[in-house]
């Protein structure tokens, strides 16, 4: 088996037994990433120091140290997470030159466990998009078919992971940005419960919705990464102090006694036939594995997209106010600083630094928060959000895990949907309510479209109940019998 096809556990065994050195592992992945990135555009920045860092780890191993469970694992990091000394752009012209002086907590924890940042992955600008086409650094290609989008906003991480340019990848998910690209690229993508993973050092899009999570080839790899990055962080007071569950231990591969919920309202005509077939086959598999299937009603999910965009855009309009060209970020070429009015200074820096989708969302958010509109938009969205969350809590009285589609269709062609914002927003129908309610959710590869593009199914569990979600995921994964997990991309 190729080194780049190995799981975290397999690689760990080979490195610990000295069959492979950390340097060999990192070099292999780095070379593959470097050559395939030309086609995929998955990375904005490759970490030029990665191999040196691996050498340092080998020295530590030789000295009898054990740097941690991820020693020598090259990990691709979405360019929303600050990495000390490595450019962090958020896919924006605004931050195209920004080099953070500090590591995000997720990155710091991965490094502490011995992992190596192999590079920073491409994304929709400030994570605002579902196709990776809004990036200042150009669109990412789907490794299964280069004419197709990888999904977004964590499209670079999804593409890098699907093409095995890293052992594991990190994405962020505000309204589906891990799960949808994971589905489009045929990998596992987990959005943890809100508060499970620290947001410190992650460029904020929408504070009450953002969560970082693993994007991996297998469920157990996702568990390995999630365990490392989870848990309370003293730099983020919205992280929970709850104990992080053990997700790695081999789980029971049966689903006996499990109640799987199907959301009645998700049975829409807009669902693509291949997606419908994939979800149906997952349901049948669950039944076969002993699960009981329960239909649940979540009528307020029909409002998920409006609530999501109002909340996310409002928070974003404020979160992105710090990009003003004063302390960091893009500053326009002013001939004379003395002659420029302060307001013009801001408008020019921000008008040039932000792309059109980001500007659109800032405008929507500013509008929704502005005096006279606050009650009808932002506040109303927050109220309906509470009611929607209560409906989910009730649903989880009746079932353990909800099974649903991730997206109405498999990956679409680059350029096909970018023109109309509303159509684009409505694509997020199945993923946004998970973030609004703060629930853990994941995408699990479960089939392929007639065109050979991967399709995932979505699992959602109650707050801080990742354990149940993973149990179902392990069982479904084992029964899925996917013919291939890694696309064939040649340099």
């Amino acid at each position, binding site marked *: 088996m190729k080194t780049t096809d190995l799981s975290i556990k397999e690689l760990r065994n080979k490195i610990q037994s000295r069959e492979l050195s950390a340097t060999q592992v990192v070099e292999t992945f780095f070379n593959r990433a470097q050559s395939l990135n030309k086609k995929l555009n998955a990375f904005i920045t490759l970490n030029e120091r990665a191999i040196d860092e691996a050498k340092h780890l080998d020295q530590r191993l030789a000295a009898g140290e054990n740097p941690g469970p991820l020693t020598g694992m090259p990990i691709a990091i979405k360019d929303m997470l*600050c990495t000390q000394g490595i450019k962090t752009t958020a896919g924006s012209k605004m931050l195209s030159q920004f080099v953070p002086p500090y590591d995000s907590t997720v990155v710091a924890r991965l490094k502490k466990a011995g992992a190596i940042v192999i590079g920073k992955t491409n994304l929709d600008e400030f994570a605002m998009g579902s196709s990776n086409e809004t990036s200042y650094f150009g669109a990412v290609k789907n490794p299964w078919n280069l004419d197709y989008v990888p999904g977004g906003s964590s499209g670079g991480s999804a593409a890098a992971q699907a093409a095995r340019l890293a052992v594991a990848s990190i994405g962020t998910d505000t309204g589906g940005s891990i799960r949808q690209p994971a589905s489009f690229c045929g990998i596992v993508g987990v959005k943890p419960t809100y508060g499970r993973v620290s947001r410190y050092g992650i*460029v904020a899009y929408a504070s*009450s919705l953002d969560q970082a999570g693993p994007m991996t080839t297998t469920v157990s790899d996702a568990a390995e990464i999630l365990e490392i990055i989870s848990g309370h962080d003293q*730099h983020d007071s919205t992280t929970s102090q709850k104990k992080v569950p053990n997700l790695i231990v081999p789980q029971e591969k049966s689903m006996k006694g499990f109640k799987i919920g199907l959301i009645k309202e998700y049975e829409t005509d807009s669902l693509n036939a291949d997606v419908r077939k994939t979800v149906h086959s997952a349901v049948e598999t669950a039944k076969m594995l002993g699960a009981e299937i329960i239909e649940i009603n979540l009528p307020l999910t029909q409002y998920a997209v409006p609530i999501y965009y109002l909340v996310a855009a409002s928070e974003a309009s404020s979160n992105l106010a*710090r990009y003003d060209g004063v*302390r960091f970020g893009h500053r326009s070429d002013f001939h004379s600083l003395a002659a420029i009015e302060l307001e013009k200074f801001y408008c020019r820096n921000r008008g040039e630094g932000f792309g059109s989708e980001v500007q659109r969302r800032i405008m929507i958010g*500013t509008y929704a*928060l502005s005096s006279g509109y*606050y009650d009808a938009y932002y506040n109303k969205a927050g109220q309906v959000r509470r009611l929607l969350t209560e409906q989910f809590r009730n649903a989880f009285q009746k079932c353990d895990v909800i099974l649903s589609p991730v997206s109405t269709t498999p990956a679409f062609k680059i350029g096909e949907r970018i023109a109309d914002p509303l159509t684009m927003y409505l694509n997020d129908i199945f993923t946004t309510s998970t973030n609004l309610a703060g629930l853990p959710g994941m995408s699990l590869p479960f089939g392929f479209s007639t065109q050979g593009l991967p399709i995932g199914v979505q699992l959602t569990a109650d707050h801080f109940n990742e354990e149940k979600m993973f149990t179902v995921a392990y069982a479904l994964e084992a029964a899925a019998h996917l013919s291939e997990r890694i696309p064939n991309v040649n340099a």
Partner: protein
Amino acid sequence: MSMRNYEPVIGLEIHAQLKTNTKMFSSDSTRFEASDNENTSPVSVGMPGALPVINKQAIDFAIRAGLALNCQIRKKSVFSRKNYFYPDLPKGYQISQYDLPICEEGFIEFTVDDEPKKIQIIRAHLEEDAGKSTHQGDYTLINLNRSGIPLLEIVSGPDLRSGKEASVYARTVRQILRYLDVCDGNLEEGSLRCDCNVSVRKVGTEKFGTRVEIKNINSFRFVEKAIEFEIERQIDAIERGESIVQETRLYDPDKNKTFTMRTKEDAQDYRYFPEPDLLPVILTEAQLSKIKLELPELPQQKCSRFQKQYSLPFYDSEILTAERELSEFFEEAVKICNNPKGVSNWMMTELLRELNEAKLTIQQSPISAVNLGTLVGLIDKGTISGKIAKTIFAEMWKTSDHPEQIIKAKGLTQITDPKAIGLIIDELIAKNPGPVSEYRAGKTKLLGFFVGQAMKASQGQANPEILNQVLLEKLKG
């Protein structure tokens, strides 16, 4: 001052920097003496990904202040974002409290010209300070050391009716905050800032006039003067038939005038919304009662206790309790000598005068409370006379030495032995036969002359009472 049948309506917004070691939402130091941007971090610079985390101490301080200002403390208060763009505001929003402040509905009481006043405190809320801009003509420089320092904004009701009232109110608030040890109240360093809202209306009208805000006043004296000027300016304008523009004005102490800083063109739209990076501040009854129990004695309570416990006049008590440290000095000194009025007199006449002249605080006094108490005790015991005590006090001020040490070194003990005093007087009588016979012939007015001479001969060390007694005895012949 003539009010020409107008009534001023004044409300104060006091921004008090809380005396925490670190900022409201980050672990940066709050040390005033720091080099440019030394007290900064990703949080206070508003770097991408940085998040605020609440400083426990700031919450405690706010509760302490709220309780002392007789406020209701909310069991659930919420931080909100106030959105606006300004170079000294790194995140493009200030984290503040909006509709659910931590303290509200309080009041304070004080007297102005012997008249008791009760002023409402509408709210006291926590927020973070902005950075500092320095204007250099062609450009402005930004220092973020102050960015994120916790502020308690204390908002009074529109209850104040004169500049004097406003300044006494502000002084009282400062005194309370200093007693609580939550703010050092230094107006020059900006750790206490006063914004004054001033309007005038015809006596008897209910409706408020148009409000003008005066910002950046850096002394209580100027609070009074700025408000008095502004009242006159507004009355003049109205009398001339002009209308008052709602605006922000600055006070220029050199010209004793206020002038326009900015008019409220279109009202700012701050787009307040709950800060999603922070959870609501939830307080339990247990937390509140613990802080309540730890609350120190406040100036007014202490002032009345001093009058009762030490039988001091109101005047003395008020001065001695003006500052917590001063009152503590007094009580420490009294413990040594058990003579409250004696200590009070020495503090109010001698010590405070010296401190004022040397521009020192009581904490910096070269004379310690123990030493002053000892000095008063030595006078009470008759070891030294009041006159010598003054000499010793001067020496104590210079050297910080203990009074007994000074007495010993300089041989300044009082002579109380009648025999020793008798010897001095015998000599005096022998030297002045003329005045003695005149005295004995009935010119008793000469007694003063003999007292002075005898005291001089004893180098001021003779106990005056005993000297008097012995002298009268001996002059009888």
